[in-house]
């Protein structure tokens, strides 16, 4: 017998059925496709408002493209620096200069359900970086900034070694980001 919790045992039992395995894979792919689009919109909203993000983007050349997604043949989005912000230019790989691809759906789902921080996932080698490593670290830092602004404190405490203390002006930035996220989401999904 394996040392598993009741939930894990039930999942293992369900996975015994081929149909379940197909449904589970599809559900994970669908979740990741939606989560990546949400993050695409979040890149747009945060990069246009956050000063930390602006500093990070200062050295980026215009038109720099990067992709975020899941290997192999999983959902993927490509983003591009346009002016002072990062815009999602579509799904799939669209000639990115850099791509950060999670090695499997489970690792990607763990990060995009906030079970694990993106930095933690990177140091655990759960993502494959194709392109310049230094540029990848820049993207990961921006992803980190996005998480800090979007996620509630108790999740941040779980995922970040040191949770940054927010100033009053940063709380205002957070509210502005939430407000900007709505049109960004509309642009991304429709």
């Amino acid at each position, binding site marked *: *017998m394996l*040392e598993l919790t009741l939930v894990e045992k039930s999942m*293992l039992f369900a996975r015994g059925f081929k149909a379940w*395995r197909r449904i589970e894979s599809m559900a994970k792919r669908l979740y990741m496709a939606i989560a990546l689009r949400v993050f695409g919109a979040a890149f747009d909203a945060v990069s246009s408002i956050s000063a930390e993000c602006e500093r990070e983007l200062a050295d980026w050349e215009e038109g720099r493209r990067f992709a975020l997604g899941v290997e*192999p043949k999983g959902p993927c989005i490509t983003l591009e620096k346009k002016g002072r912000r990062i815009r999602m230019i579509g799904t799939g790989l669209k000639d990115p200069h850099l791509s950060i691809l999670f090695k499997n759906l*489970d690792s990607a789902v*763990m990060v995009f359900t906030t079970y694990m921080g993106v930095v933690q996932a990177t140091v655990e080698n759960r993502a494959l970086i194709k392109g310049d490593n230094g540029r990848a670290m820049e993207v990961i830092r921006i992803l980190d900034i996005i998480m800090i602004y979007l996620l509630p404190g108790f999740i941040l405490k779980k995922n970040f070694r040191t949770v940054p203390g927010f100033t009053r002006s940063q709380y205002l930035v957070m509210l502005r980001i939430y407000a900007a996220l709505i049109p960004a989401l509309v642009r991304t999904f429709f």
Partner: protein
Amino acid sequence: MQLPDSYEHHHPTKIIAGQRAVSNLPFEAGRFGAKKPLIVLDEEMGRTGFIHLLEQAFADCGQKSGGVFFSGERATAAGAGEAAEFFRRSGCDCFIAVGGGAVMDGAKAAAMAVALEGAEFPSDRRFSMKLPKIIAVPVTYAPGYQVTNLAELFDEEKNRPLHYFSENFIPCMAVLDPKATLKASGAAKAAFALEALARGLEAASGREANPIVVIYAKAAIGLVKNFLGPALNEKRSREADQALASASLYAGIAFSGCSGGIITGAAHGLKAVRGIEAGMAAAVLLTRGLDFVAREMRAPAAELVAVRESLSLVRGIPGLPRGLREAGVAREQLEKIAEVAQAGPFLPEDRAREVFTLLEEAF
């Protein structure tokens, strides 16, 4: 740590450990050029349903495994032939061994049979032919020699084990997932941990120990020292189980870099003559014969302290024999066991006398 005048070290196993490590297996296997694996496991593992976890990982990548082959309780030429036939028929390109030592031996023997293409197993102990890739998914509590360059095949005609050595037996990848932890009794956990200690101690004090072997051996001993207590005392401790699985793996890697030792040699003799499992045998020998082992092997002092601390944790565990007599060995058999140990693959020099003394100490 001393630097030898000259040494060679080769251990190509990529270790993937941690939460959902199994999900990573298809992608990482693909990097080794393996797309369609044959999964080898035993009946007991088959009943646990762990295979579904692997199948889900392949389904997530849009792939399928080449099939499942159930290996027997020990690897035989006939079983290996069957597995090789299944491997060829299904168009597989690598083996994934899920389980303990017997399964790993089964996968190694099957890989040999694939390379031999129907020819008989050679009498030469060194096997130099190119083999399909092997991936190990050790299931705690499983012994750590899965990642060694050794394979044991049971000769049914002569009723004795045959040992083969090849660099190609070393798995290209070992995946340690906390979900691959079997429920085990305190005695089984202790035996498993003490076997890792024995291998680590032998590797660290072996004449051919190089700095890399010593690093792995010390890591194995350190992990056992720190996590054996929690593994024995807590009802469910994933961290401790994972640490012991890692310790076993490191000890196996360290042991690959040395030619053997008197504990492993004596344990081999006990298994061959009395059918005592290698882990349990190593546990008894280490518990009773540590003073002798320490004198004989000139083991590093810090590691000896760690081993003594670990041994104090397992004293009095029900089911763990306190000596060879309790394990069902008769005094008259000790000489025979020492002879078999000397004839085995773990004692390159004449150490029959030392093995006999160790057996007497542990009686």
